[in-house]
């Protein structure tokens, strides 16, 4: 059974949800504490949503310096799949594992709603299970989810096919180019603002469209 680490920072909120999603996808979730530095036996890592350390400074700015992140950064460099959801995406940007930044929503409010997305890249470790161009509905919920990057970075993301998902039917936060998620050139690190872990059970979410992120990585790891 494939073991996927789910990091809990003080202030993480969706860690139990991410663990449930891993379990429903057929993997074994392993809780990791923000002070952990040993990832023995962990084959992929999820940085869940929440407000790490309260996020009173810039979102993710403190978490980026936590002991576990040094290990995550070096594991990402070795090709270990890493998925940052919401606050996790913010932490990945602060850690420079992904370019750009997440800023305050353009309308200045927190927003929680079911959001339609288009999967733009099925070549990342977390999206191989989706058909390129597939449309899915998963919840978005954030106060600081507006993705921004300089023009060169945006051109590179576009040109190299590094945009993983875009918002459809209304951009919930003013993200540039409707970007909802991006990946690194190697495709193992993915940052995603919406929450696939909240769409793994039709009873408690808008559907099961989010499960593919977790089954994708598990399938890839079994093959590898």
């Amino acid at each position, binding site marked *: 059974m494939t073991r996927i680490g789910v990091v809990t920072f*003080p202030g993480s909120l969706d860690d139990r949800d991410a663990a449930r999603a891993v379990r429903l996808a057929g993997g074994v979730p392993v809780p990791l504490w923000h002070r952990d530095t040993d990832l023995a036996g962990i084959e992929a890592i999820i940085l869940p*949503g929440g407000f790490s350390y309260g996020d009173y400074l810039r979102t993710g700015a403190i978490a980026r310096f936590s002991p576990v992140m040094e290990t995550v950064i070096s594991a990402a460099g070795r090709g270990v799949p890493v998925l940052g959801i919401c606050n996790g995406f913010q932490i990945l940007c602060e850690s420079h594992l992904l370019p750009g930044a997440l800023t305050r929503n353009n309308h200045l409010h927190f*927003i*929680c709603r079911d959001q339609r997305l288009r999967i733009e890249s099925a070549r990342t470790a977390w999206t191989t299970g989706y058909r390129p161009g597939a449309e899915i509905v998963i919840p978005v919920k954030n106060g600081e989810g507006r993705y921004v990057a300089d023009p060169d970075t945006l051109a590179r993301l576009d040109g190299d096919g590094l945009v993983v998902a875009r918002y459809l039917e209304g951009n919930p936060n003013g993200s540039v180019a409707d970007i909802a998620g991006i990946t690194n050139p190697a495709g193992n690190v993915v940052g995603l603002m919406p929450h696939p872990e*909240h769409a793994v059970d039709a009873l*408690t979410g808008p559907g099961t469209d989010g499960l593919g992120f977790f089954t994708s990585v598990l399938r890839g790891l079994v093959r590898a």
Partner: protein
Amino acid sequence: MRDTVEIDTVEQAAASPKLPQPYAELGLAQDEYERIRTILGRRPTGCELAMYAVMWSEHCSYKSSKIHLRQFADKAPQSDALLVGIGENAGVVDIGQGWAVTFKIESHNHPSFVEPYQGAATGVGGIVRDILSMGARPVAVLDPLRFGPLDAPDTGRVLPGVVAGIGGYGNCLGLPTIGGEVGFDPSYAGNPLVNALCLGVLRRDAIKLAKASGPGNQVILYGAKTGRDGIGGVSVLASATFDSAGFGAGDGDGEGNGAGGRDLGGPAAKKPSVQVGDPFTEKTLIECSLELFERNLVAGIQDLGGAGLACATSELASAGTGGMRVWLDRVHLREPSMTPHEVLTSESQERMCAIVTPAEVPEFLAICEKWDVDAAIIGEVTGVSPAEAEAGGRLVISWHGEVVVDVPPRTVAHEGPVYARPFARPADQDAVVADAPSPGRLARPVSADELRSTLFRLAGSANLCAKTWVTAQYDRYVQGNTVLAQPADAGVIRVDESTGLGVAVSTDGNGRYTRLDPYAGAQLALAEAFRNVAATGARPLAVTNCLNFGSPEDPGVMWQFAEAVRGLADGCRALGIPVTGGNVSFYNQTGDVAILPTPIVGVLGVIDDVARRTRTGFGGVGDVVLLLGTTRDELGGSEWAYAVHGHLGGLPPAVDLAAERVLADLLAAGSREGLLSAAHDLSDGGLAQALVESCLAGSVGAHIALPGDLDPFVWLFAESAARAVVAVPAAAEQRFTKMCQARDFPVARLGVVGGDALDVQGQFSISLAELRSVHEATMPAQFG
């Protein structure tokens, strides 16, 4: 630093009996002050006076409401489900399979008017700690809110701030917000209502109680450091009224009985009395506490809320062995210059007080350190002599070696003053009741066009319009157990992932009904919450309430209160569900004008398998739409009378609790047997509004034919209680109808689900797109 501050010790108090003391400024009446002197046999020290003042405030002591609230216990129906009842931090209900849930609702009205964001945020924080202190993991929040008119300038300040505060705090704690209400009326313009209900889940054998037992056990204060925020919150803010100017100087005396002259300034001057929330600290406090509970390291626990340490130490001691010794200088402070009475009465948030056996202290402190939660051993439980026990125990608090408090804690916490305030039916009550919305008094729509435009007007009115602008700012998904959330009739939370066991919760309240008839109004609030819970397929089990009223010193308000409590207690007995706890909020008025009396009632129900929950929105095309219950010409206090005519008079709809029970039984049976594809209770706005909501929630139209025996207007807009609209697959229609007939419950076939319009035969047809734009445009048009 402390050398520069004169500390009033017990020794000094005994030596200077004639020293004038500022009891009136602290909100105490003269006879209350005299009583303190009698209890102590001397004048109180400054710390003792502050302690009695906050604990004997209306907010903490329930001195005006106590004699009425006893009915909730006296009239409580027999219930095997009740594990912990009224009097603890929150009631606990057995839901089977070894699981229990705890829930409670509280108000944070005045702080939210003064400082909307922090007031609302700390309201959520406070109720969450109440739930946590029962040993439960908080799992959901509901927020009943009332504001002044939607377009009033101050609503533009208060509402967005309150909503952002609830979201900012609740979202950051990882608590889904699954329900509540947003209502508007001019009476709330200078005194909004911000109530918050929290739901928690625990194993039934893991309940924690707020008592300090076992001499030698240690008293540990953990969580945030103590600062100067919120000092006097309960006595200055929660137990006083705002003046008519809202932001002018001066305010009414809060506690009456001749203790006048309390000029503490307007809301701006009271800002320091509003606490400041830090949800991150609360989040780590929750996780840390849950780990402490899991390892069984806590012998007793109390959260710190109103009245801070004064409340926690006296209540813990009074409920336990009776003795406690506290070294107040050991409290970790944010501001080292704080005086002992400030430390005692500070309402700094995110703090808990635990009673821990000496052997377990090291492990307790290690877990706090793991979570980076600050902890200090501030005292210990002490034995009491029989004479001391008789006098109410003994709580001794010292400050750098000097004794500043030496009181019997029971006299502080549990034996405060009790008032039988005079009450009288208001002079204008008969005139209001006589002014019924008869066809001669209020013009009714007759033609198809008039009915159509009335439906539009209501669907887009402040009270009935979609509240997505508000609820989209709340996280509904976190924790992954939200099965239903607003705008569903009730929120439904899965408790056990393996069995599907879950609970449903709804809060309801109608100030207009209660103004017309407080006894019936409280019962209608109860009936609506009961019905909403039943509509999801759950079986109602227990009740909590937040009673928002004007000044108890006004006999008319006191009559409203007494009648509402009597109605609620009788109603709970009739429905067979006990009150497990709640909160009273008095002094909700602007100058001499009280708010509409607003008892908010929360009902909790259990559902054996959340997969069987019934949705609000219409589903399958071709499903048959049925109306359950009896419709009468009942429009007193209705949304139609208010929104179209600005009228409030007559009597509210008749209460029929026996019918409510049968209806709930039908809705539960229909869900259990899988016969219902949708169910929605009828309340404000009547059948018309229910159809609008069911169509929009399901994104599907309906073809409706109104039965001929009543005026179409009455069918569409009357607000008769004990009714629901349901959709059943055509194949199940006969079986469900027979179930209704077997119970002798009225059922009428209204039509079928389908199409992309709400089509009322012979009257009008409105496209869903048009309905949606009217229903959803109101809030964004006001707030952007």
